[in-house]
């Protein structure tokens, strides 16, 4: 195989298409240039490749390298000199969400497992149908027909268990004769992940009517949940059926050097790589226009790394911005703002963003509103992640019969903020924040990290492209990730506990100087990079001494000495307490918000205001 020297990669998001160019220089791969353009699934183009071409054209202009042929198509196979790319890769999340109906025999057992499998695979659940869900059969049949999902996941029965109930579910599907949301005349994909012994009878009924795919039982025994095969089948069908509906997707498929990967899958690959290479726990987020993906790698009870991914399909910064408003409520968005705004004004503004999703905040207050929304979207998506993390651990997750019967999850214990080593933020609002400190504060407010946590962001939102690159050129992906993608913001030190404003909270001794931070305040100790403003961050030994009643990981009031990592902000001592509670009266809240912004060197007003 000839040496790969020039790599072009695009990510087609629901709002923006991003292109990056990576070239091999002096023996190592570096990001050379990037471009972006609105995603063109809208009229008059209705073709995702128009946005791709526009984004690549920007890269062409900036890099002075010809990457498009005369027809505007990406030219794969680099020529001598300054033309073409050796490799062209693309990820995509265009095409809207994945809408699923799940069905199981027992609502609290197999149907719940099916729900976890589907949600973990990024679906919006339209309904959960179960034999014991309390509705009459005809009501369920009408509901199944009315929904028109992208696919159905059918589960139920342990292996060797009930057959009749599965056949009854299949009969319900036959009766409803459901059609897919997209693709007239196509058979609805149905994934069967139930009792293996019932499959022949179910197949007899369904095979000619739907597109039936069998995978391993997602609940083979009462004590075991096996979600991975169903989730993989959902991902495959998502790519085959749903993403194919994005206008121009077929054409794009013919341009790329390897199959298009869904954006969340690509980002997940990078997150797992970080956790594995550094042997750390990681919480990652990719907040887009339509959806927010949350990724985590935490340690299980046996010390093994457990990867989880969830997709909050209706939480995003443009298309889904009003869904954030609906779920979070206006008052929860307003609380993060350094100024007062009426509910009506806020609602109208967010509606206008929803209907013109590609616009950019030009005024400072508009940016602050979007960043306030992002805090709530991140928070809600994280809540969603925490509630599902227990069910997304793959093949070997084991729960006792007691836990299974009560559905009390052991999974929640996986998301332990005190044991979290690193947060990685990605997506437009985090990667493109005018000041990196804004990204740090958004993540601190939304996630409330506890103890000692390294904060980072994807520099220019290129993790999707690096994720797919890692599958074909891992060396190139790692090099670019380390040097050009990951931006160190600094280490957040956040004592857990509550107190009164101004009371002693924590003292940090670093590099021979001592910094005491009272309760309710944020203080930043500069700790930058080894050279310049980026690259390798400085590291320092810090002794963190929490006041009585506060914990930074060693127990209440107990000191801890750790190596902290610097970054663009440095060491951020967040003594606002955990859980973080905002003042309830407006005047105090506004004063505190402005104070915290000032501590982080974030402007409240536009420079020329």
């Amino acid at each position, binding site marked *: 195989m000839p040496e790969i020297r020039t790599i072009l990669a695009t990510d087609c998001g*629901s709002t923006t298409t991003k292109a990056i160019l990576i070239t091999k220089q002096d023996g190592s791969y570096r990001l050379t240039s990037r471009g972006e*353009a*609105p995603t*063109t*699934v*809208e009229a*008059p*183009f*209705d073709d995702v490749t128009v946005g791709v071409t*526009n984004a690549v*054209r*920007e890269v062409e*202009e900036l890099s002075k390298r010809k990457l498009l042929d005369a027809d505007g198509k990406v030219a794969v196979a680099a020529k001598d000199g300054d033309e073409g790319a050796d490799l062209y890769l693309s990820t995509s999340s265009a*095409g*809207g969400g994945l809408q699923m109906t799940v069905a199981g025999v027992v609502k609290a057992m197999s149907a719940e497992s099916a729900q976890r499998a589907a949600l973990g695979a990024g679906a919006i659940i339209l309904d959960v149908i179960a034999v014991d869900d309390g509705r009459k059969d*005809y009501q369920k*049949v009408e509901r199944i027909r009315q929904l028109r999902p992208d696919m159905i996941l059918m589960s139920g029965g342990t292996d060797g268990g009930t057959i*009749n109930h599965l*056949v*009854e579910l299949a*009969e319900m599907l*036959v*009766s*409803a*004769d459901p*059609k897919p949301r997209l693709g*007239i*005349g196509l058979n609805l994909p149905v994934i069967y992940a139930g009792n293996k012994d019932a499959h022949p*009878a179910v197949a007899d*009924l369904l095979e000619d009517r739907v597109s039936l795919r069998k995978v391993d039982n997602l609940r083979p025994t009462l004590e075991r949940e096996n979600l991975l095969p169903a989730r993989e089948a959902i991902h495959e069908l998502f790519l085959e059926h749903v993403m194919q*509906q*994005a206008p121009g997707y077929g054409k794009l498929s013919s341009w790329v050097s390897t199959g298009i990967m869904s954006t969340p899958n690509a980002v997940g690959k990078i997150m797992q790589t970080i956790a594995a290479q550094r042997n750390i726990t990681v919480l990652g987020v990719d907040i887009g226009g339509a959806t927010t993906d949350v990724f985590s790698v935490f340690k299980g009870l046996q010390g093994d790394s457990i990867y989880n991914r969830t997709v909050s399909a*209706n939480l995003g910064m443009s*298309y*889904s911005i*009003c869904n954030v*408003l*609906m779920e979070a409520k206006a008052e929860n968005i307003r609380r993060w703002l350094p100024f007062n705004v009426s*509910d*009506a004004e806020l*609602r*109208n*503004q967010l*509606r*206008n963003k929803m*209907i*013109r999703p*590609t*616009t*950019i905040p*030009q*005024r*400072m207050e*508009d*940016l602050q509103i979007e960043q306030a929304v992002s805090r709530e979207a991140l928070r809600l998506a994280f809540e969603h992640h925490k509630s599902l993390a227990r069910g997304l651990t793959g093949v070997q997750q084991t729960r006792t019969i007691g836990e299974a019967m009560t559905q009390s999850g052991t999974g929640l214990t996986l998301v332990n903020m005190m044991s979290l080593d690193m947060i990685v933020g990605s997506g437009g609002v985090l990667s*493109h924040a*005018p*000041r990196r400190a804004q990204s740090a504060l958004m993540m601190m407010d939304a996630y409330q990290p506890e103890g000692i946590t390294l904060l980072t962001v994807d520099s220019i939102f290129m993790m999707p492209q690096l994720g797919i690159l890692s599958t074909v050129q891992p060396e190139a992906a790692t090099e670019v990730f380390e040097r050009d993608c990951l931006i160190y913001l600094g280490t957040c030190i956040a004592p857990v506990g509550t107190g009164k404003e101004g009371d002693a909270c924590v003292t940090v001794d670093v590099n021979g100087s001592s910094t005491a931070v009272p309760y309710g305040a944020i203080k930043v100790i500069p700790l930058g990079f080894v050279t310049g403003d980026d690259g390798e961050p400085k590291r320092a030994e810090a002794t963190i001494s929490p006041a009585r009643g506060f914990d930074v990981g060693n127990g209440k009031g107990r000191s801890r000495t750790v190596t902290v990592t610097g970054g663009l902000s440095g060491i951020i001592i967040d003594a606002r307490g955990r859980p973080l509670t905002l003042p309830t009266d407006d005047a105090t809240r506004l004063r505190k918000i402005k104070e915290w912004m000032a501590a982080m060197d974030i402007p409240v007003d*536009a*420079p020329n205001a």
Partner: protein
Amino acid sequence: MGSAYTPGLTVSGRTVIEKTRRLPLKGAVLVQAGELVVPTTVVARTELPGLMQTVKLAEQLGVEPNELKSALRVSASDVIEKGQILAQTKGLFGFFKSEFKSPVAGRLEMISEQTGHLGIRMPPTPIEKDAYVSGVVQSVIPEEGAVIHCVGALVQGIFGVGGERQGVIRAVTSSQDATLDESAITPECRGQILIGGQCVTLAALRAASACGVAGIVVGGVVDSDLMEFMRSELKDPSFDIGVAITGHEPIPLTLVVTEGFGPIRMADRTYALLQSLNGRTAAINGATQIRAGVIRPEVIVADADQAASVAPPAADAGELRIGTPIRVIREPYFGALGAVTGLPSELTQVDSETWVRVLNAALQDGRNVTVPRANVEIIVT
């Protein structure tokens, strides 16, 4: 970068409109390419299969599922009448026979030896797709529908609710700055499409609904007014719009908003065009989908003689160039019209401190401004 793509909404007195009229299921197409159609012409027809009624027969007869076969008096695919005997047991020495009659009419589609259930498919429901606009059938999509080629006026809105309707356009406000309030709703408005100015009030929406107004076209609507109207019409106090996918709401009128949320003066050109169409019959659709395969709400007034209509030249597909007429679609210049005067290629920092690709524009009010390219739309004529 010399030019850039920015999508815009069409507001045109005469343009080509292609409407794809497609069935939700495969069916029969009833028109042919080249055929003239009017809004009520049925383009395609299909049948939505009836629901299948499951009869738990073995359970009813008190027999095991595998014993059911010998008791059946009907076979798969049989047409079943309501009350027809489906099964009868032999009983004991000819006594204690039990039988079961069909609770519904339909076709016997399923006999399950596993569960002992029968499935009787009830009669199908016919579905028709009409042409929606006057025009000529441009092409037929086999078994699915047709593409209608129409020449006429088109106003695309930014957001709407409610589905396809027809009505006569009636201008009811004095200017594009005026608010459409309930005083404008009179009995004569029934079945008509009302053109307002900057806003429609909640009381006017309610009065229009009660009066039987077919549609309302207005510059803006206050979010809380629209939600309250929808909640009361749908009798769903928790109704809200999280993502802009609309058009299927079972409400009695269709609303098309041309500018956005809040009271926003309707663009002069849009208002003038709609005024000029006063008294003409229009098709209106509030369906909005701001996702893949975007759909914007619309008002269409087809030329009276579609056979004689000659298609105007295709509009510029949307390249930003020096001189391109634009409208700013975000604060601080929201709604302002102007023309592009510069397209600097380097990134520029705006008040929010964001570095973005911008354009310079001369606004009609005399201001020269710099705005992110993403915050303008090309005025498509």
